[in-house]
């Protein structure tokens, strides 16, 4: 009995050592907090350092007055700088946004994310959305915001620069760069002559096991929507069922499809045109893949756009309009043509010589603004067990 009591006491005494673990942890947290405080004080300097070291990583105005926004407490920025929600990737648009900041002197705060998730975020935020501008990866998301009455009409001089087929009929959003749907094919397995003249021909059993697609991908779904609008519900359904019967490999996105084409997992894949060029740049040379464009207004030759809309709850509408004008300027359009391998949507900007010019692509007769019936497309994809 007495032994038990002593050992218990000893155990309790020994257990006093244990708080050190917790203590150490909280010291760690404390150091972290203090560390951040320190960083905040020297925020201006370190932010500009960061942006030069990382080659355009930081977009929140290196060294400018509101650099503190990059650390804690940066939430209440409405009224300070222009707030852009960008569904376009930071690697792609970060540098051009930075150039806008330099040239206009306007601070831009960017929230990067998935286009659809950001659209959902804007819808959830409602009247209190901090966003001024929505920079969307595709027209569908902009159409969805238009339907909810969240975007405001854009100035006529911005709209007039862009062809009718690449903007909202009511002038609430406008495309700033184009992306064409193409078929990427493995050049070791196929030659261009072996490819069909219409995307509708991929239902032929000869393509069994050779196709890759990404049914969850926004660009693909925009194409299916276009197919429904142009050829009707029945043709779209037949096409989906036909391709599905050819046992296509399902990928998560365009890029994974292209990787599949390059590695030979599949021979053809339905993608956007510019991924090929990115992959070439990344792997530093030739890859055994090429883009194939459909002719004669085939539904497979849809050109979708990345576009901009301005929220009607924006606090910085003049700055937002300046942002839009800049993105439609020759400088920015040239940037998109050179750096992201997309199509410029204004006249007179030379495009990458490896691209088929936009004027030579006869796009199917579908209004991009009409491509927002995604629920219908989603239902069709589900009914045909594609999704």
């Amino acid at each position, binding site marked *: 009995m007495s032994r038990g009591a002593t050992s218990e006491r000893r155990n309790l005494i020994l257990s006093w050592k244990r708080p050190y673990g917790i203590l150490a942890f909280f010291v760690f947290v404390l150091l972290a907090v203090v560390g951040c405080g320190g960083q905040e004080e020297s925020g201006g300097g370190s932010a500009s350092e960061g942006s030069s070291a990382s080659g355009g990583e930081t977009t929140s105005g290196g060294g400018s007055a509101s650099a503190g926004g990059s650390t804690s407490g940066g939430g209440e920025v409405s009224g300070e700088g222009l707030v852009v929600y960008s569904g376009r990737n930071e690697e792609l648009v970060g540098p051009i946004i930075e150039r806008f900041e330099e040239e206009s002197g306007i601070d831009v705060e960017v929230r990067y994310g998935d286009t659809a*998730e950001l659209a959902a975020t804007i819808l959830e935020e409602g009247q209190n959305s901090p966003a001024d501008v929505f920079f969307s990866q595709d027209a569908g998301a902009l159409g969805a915001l238009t339907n909810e009455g969240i975007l405001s009409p854009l100035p006529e001089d911005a709209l007039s620069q862009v062809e009718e087929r690449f903007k909202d009929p009511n002038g609430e959003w406008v495309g700033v760069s184009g992306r064409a749907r193409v078929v990427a094919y493995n050049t070791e397995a196929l030659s261009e002559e072996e490819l069909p003249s219409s995307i509708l021909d991929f239902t032929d059993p000869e393509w069994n096991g050779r196709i890759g697609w990404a049914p969850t991908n926004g660009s693909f779904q925009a194409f299916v929507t276009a197919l429904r609008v142009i050829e009707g519900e029945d043709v779209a359904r037949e096409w989906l069922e036909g391709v599905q019967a050819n046992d296509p490999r399902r990928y998560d996105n365009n890029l994974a499809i292209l990787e599949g084409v390059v590695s030979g997992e599949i021979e053809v894949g339905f993608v956007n045109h510019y991924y090929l060029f990115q992959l070439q740049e990344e792997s530093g040379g030739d890859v055994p893949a090429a883009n194939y464009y459909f002719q004669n207004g085939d539904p497979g030759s849809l050109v979708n756009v990345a576009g901009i809309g301005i929220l009607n709850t924006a606090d910085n509408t003049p700055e937002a309009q300046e942002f839009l004008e800049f993105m439609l300027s020759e400088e920015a359009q040239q940037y998109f043509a050179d750096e992201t391998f997309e199509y410029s949507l204004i006249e007179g900007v030379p495009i990458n010589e490896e691209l088929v010019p936009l004027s030579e692509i006869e796009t199917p007769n579908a209004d991009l603004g009409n491509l927002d019936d995604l629920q219908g497309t989603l239902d069709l994809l589900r009914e045909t067990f594609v999704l």
Partner: protein
Amino acid sequence: MTLPLVYLVLRSLENGWGEFFEVALRPRTLAVLARSVVLATVVTAASVAVAVPLAWLTTRTDLPGRRAWAVLAALPLVVPSYVGGLVLVSTFGPRGLLQDALAPLGVERLPEIYGLPGAALALTLFSYPYVLLTVRGALRGMDPALEEASRSLGSGGWSTFFRVTLPQLRPAIVAGALLVALYSLSDFGAVSLLQFDSFSREIYTQYRSAFDRTPAAILGLMLVALTGAILALEVRTRGRARYHRSSAGSVRPRGGTVVALGRWRWPALLFCGAVVLLALVVPVGVLVFWLARGLASGEPLRLLWGAAFDSVYVSALAAAVAALAALPVAILAVRFPGWVAGIVERLSYLGYALPGIVLALSLVFFGANYAPGLYGTLALLVFAYAVHFLPQAVGATRATLLQVSPSVEEAARGLGRGPTGVMATVTAPLASSGIIAGSALVFLTTMKELPATLLLAPLGFDTLATSIWTATSEAFFARAAAPALLLVLVSALPMYLLLIKERSR
């Protein structure tokens, strides 16, 4: 903690009950739900099968280099599933790196990894450490005298393990398994890359392709119901057993109960090696390969120390907040079991099983509309993490708390301490191994969290996870490799400290 639930109910019933039942009872919805249940079951069983032997080998045996194995085997937890999945696909895909390497041997194509096997493999490899860490914590907190008594009463090593050790470990195994099961329900990265139609993928697809949030919310609510069912199952495994003793045992110098493996050492080493190879060496190796390939083709090396700092900072905050919030919940659950404690503890699991996007949008909705002062601040982001990952801290804390005898606390009360004093000076220190393990889990999971970070972080707040996402979503694999390696490295450090600290005890 109930905010996400309230949000889901609000959104689900926006268009009335008609749409609710139409979406919920669609045959497809039920089929996908069933597939998710299968996935979660397989992953949980596999994780337990991998993690329990690993935990035992690295705490109780003379396995050569067992401390190193302990650190290495826990590290896969820091590999985000969207990176791990990508690596698995590019390595073991039909025409991946492995096929490249085997091509000279005439291997044209590897068998498919897409679908259930691949998704289950990926999720198991990157989530078994949940079980490993909780079980290790319990093994270390367990009184070796029980095993010794069993041995001295004539039971052999195996029989002691199955009849004494394993039953003692049950709460820890269940706590870890619960985390794995709920994680595999909510994960999106691995299932989408490995092309398995799980429920979370269905929810993401709904959000991403149609801008109608009602069907997505209905699906989210169904996931909540499934979580409830799993939690109810877990309660049944708990029973009324007690895991502490009436009096504390004596403290022995470490190494007192080491089991000599003898010739079993080699299969044991092989097992540890195989797990670490698949879950850690392959992903890190592929990342290094991508980085090298990128550097060779002229990519600049970008070490994002700023993002690394932000990641560590916000993860440490989340870990501290979650640990603090978890202690009262765990104490309530262990010391005052009843329906109140039951409900509070269950609610803490709600946020965990929801896919990040659902949780994030619910906080976007409440933050922007009802707490505009907090919206877009770090505080709301940390709150989101805490709500999301609280169960990790609760589970680990609860498991060690079960080993603390209430009589010690009563003695402290009897000697004149108040309830909070007892909690701070007696209960918390005695349960410290669990609290620390729990906050380490929260820290590591927060480091790689993506959907909530993207939507809720203050503008311009970059973490390593968002940097990786930025690069991978446009296939800049070389650019993703640097932050991904940095993430693994930065996360490895606290993990290492956590595990070597054990030695000093």
